[in-house]
């Protein structure tokens, strides 16, 4: 384990992978006859240049923190949860049912119950594949992918049926009661004398995401359960020998994972849309995989990676205006490259770096 110093593992290698991913994406931009330096400048300016841009960036980052944490918690138990997309969607149904059930007097009362609704539904949607993995040995990756598609069908069924707002043509619910409105960044920063953009969707869920990141850190590195989850992820046999129940760890880690993915619906459905629409997750569940990889499955890394991905998403929309020849899907290319270099090609970067450090050590 002492092949290289810790900082090289945590900072250097992700940074090199990130540079490679951006370089490869730059080549794509070059290939379609555009200037990659100009493109990245536009994106950064669009993401951070105004409070409106910043508000969108952090709004997307909030989503990615939730889904990134979701993937990470499962990863620590060596479960690859590709089902964040479906879990978040079903969690949206849970949050919606809670919010529409009462005429909430104040958001502070509605929020905890909506969180419970979302967590229960999202957790449940992850717990079924977890149960099938633990008891029947079905591969969690395939089952969670299937559950994404089943979730899409369930959403279509509900939003064209019982949950549909009868007054519109669209597959969506009625608007939420005003009592369930979450304060936006504009609203809660105004009393402090900060004039934050009114149009940006950033809301109080951002703080919820930071809280979740702290809780995940506390759970994984400061509690017995977290220790058991990590021990199970390191060595299933070793953990069993130590008396840790595989069934319990798989169920709990996947339920927490699904519940975390479900928190995305608090940000989007309750905080921004204020009604349930069909495709509100918009791929954020998959981006969570990239975020967790980039952030090395650690909450601090995930927060940073989520902000980076938030910048990319918001910057991508900005490209549309400044460089119309580049479509916003370039963000998908960058994300794909990041997943490829930090995830699948990790060894390609790690090998040479390890060798370099070994040689330096010998020289010293």
């Amino acid at each position, binding site marked *: 384990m002492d092949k290289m110093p810790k900082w090289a593992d945590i900072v250097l290698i992700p940074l090199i992978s990130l540079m490679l991913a951006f370089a490869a994406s730059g080549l*794509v931009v070059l*290939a*379609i*006859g*555009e200037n990659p330096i100009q493109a990245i400048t536009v994106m950064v300016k669009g993401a951070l240049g105004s409070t409106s841009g910043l508000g969108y960036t952090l709004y997307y980052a909030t989503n990615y923190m939730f889904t990134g944490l979701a993937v990470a918690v499962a990863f620590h138990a060596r479960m*690859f949860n*590709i089902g964040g997309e479906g879990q978040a969607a079903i969690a949206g149904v849970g949050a919606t049912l809670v919010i529409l059930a009462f005429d909430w007097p104040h958001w502070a009362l509605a929020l905890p119950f909506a969180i419970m609704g979302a967590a229960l539904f999202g957790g449940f949607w992850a717990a079924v594949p977890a149960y*099938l993995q633990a008891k*029947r*040995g*079905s*591969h969690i*990756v*395939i*089952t969670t*992918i*299937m*559950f994404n*598609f*089943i979730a*899409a*069908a*369930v959403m*279509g*069924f509900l939003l*064209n*049926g019982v949950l549909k707002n009868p007054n519109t043509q669209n597959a969506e619910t009625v608007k939420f009661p005003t009592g369930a409105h979450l304060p936006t960044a504009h609203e809660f920063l105004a009393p402090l004398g900060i004039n934050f953009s009114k149009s940006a969707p950033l809301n109080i869920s951002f703080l919820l995401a930071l809280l979740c990141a702290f809780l995940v850190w506390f759970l994984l590195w400061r509690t017995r359960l977290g220790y058991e989850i990590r021990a199970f992820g390191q060595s299933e046999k070793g953990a069993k020998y130590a008396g840790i129940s595989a069934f319990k760890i798989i169920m709990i880690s996947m339920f927490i994972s699904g519940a975390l993915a479900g928190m995305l619906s608090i940000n989007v459905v309750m905080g921004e849309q204020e009604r349930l629409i069909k495709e509100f997750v918009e791929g954020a569940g*998959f981006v969570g*995989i*990239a975020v967790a*990889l980039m952030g090395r499955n650690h909450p601090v890394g995930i927060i940073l990676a989520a902000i980076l991905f938030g910048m990319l998403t918001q910057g991508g929309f900005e490209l549309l205006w400044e460089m119309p*020849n*580049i*479509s916003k*899907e*370039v*963000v*998908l*290319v*960058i*994300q*794909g*490259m990041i*997943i*490829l270099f930090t*995830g*699948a*090609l*990790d*060894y*390609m970067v790690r*090998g040479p770096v390890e060798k370099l450090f070994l040689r330096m050590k010998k020289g010293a």
Partner: protein
Amino acid sequence: MDTANFFLQALLTADMTIRVSVVLIFACLAGLFSERAGIFDIGLEGKMLISAFFTAAVSYQTGYIWYGVAAGIAASLVFALIHGVASITFRGNQLISGVAINFLASGLTVVIGHAWFKKGGLTPPLSDAGRFHEITLPFADALRDVPILGPIYADVISGHKLLVYVAMLIVPLTWWLLYRTRFGLRLRAVGENPASVDTAGVSVVRYRYAAVLIAGVLCGLGGAYLSTSQGAAFGKEMTAGRGFIALAALIFSKWRPWYALMACLLFGFLEAISNLFPNINVFGLFEIPVQFTQALPYILTVVILAGFVGKAIPPRAGGEPYVKER
């Protein structure tokens, strides 16, 4: 419904089933080769998507369908090679590599298409020479008047595009290759017990690359079919999850070629049903919602995987990079 009308509807459904199953067959066989050699491939979707785009784009640009198909297969092969390098040479996580490929395909097809054709990621509709046409099998018209069998031959079996027949031929070919040749025996062994193959002096790496590249060619054909036969242009995200349905069919078939054909036809039948008859009324009692029919392949896969209907046991070395002992 009278009998004649029912027969007509059945013919229509059978014809549609074949049309929509072809993509699944190509993708499913691609996955079969890859997974039989021990390489998980959830990037089937991405490989088909990139091929669908390049086939349509190059066919449109050159006016020759075969240039398009070649370009599509080449693009799919590049992705297959990336998957191979990541998961075989650098022993990376095969699932993560597959996710990356799907992301790249979703992004690249729209970015390149948008810059190339300025149509928001779509390709322009293909000209006559730029796509495949129906092939009428011999005597189809002459035999049409034969009762029952005539229309089945003329409307269901005849009158498809070239790649449909190619797909149907690849199924027995795959079976023969896997079960009747030395190459196939070794390929399967590489997916079950790579160490033993290695001991016998056969290169595990070479066989795994071969399998991944075959999967690339098959996904290339699947993508080409999608944009030049099932449709006549490329559309954003036009694979629409078919790569994952193919994966489901692969599990359903327990990694065997003939069963794969059956599973793809079954899932194709479900797609045809949900296209032709959105809401099915069961004896006037209740209605089966279209979403249920659409979700059925996924639900069936979950049930199969859970071992409630027969047990699906994947190749034993699937997903594990092979590290040669030193």
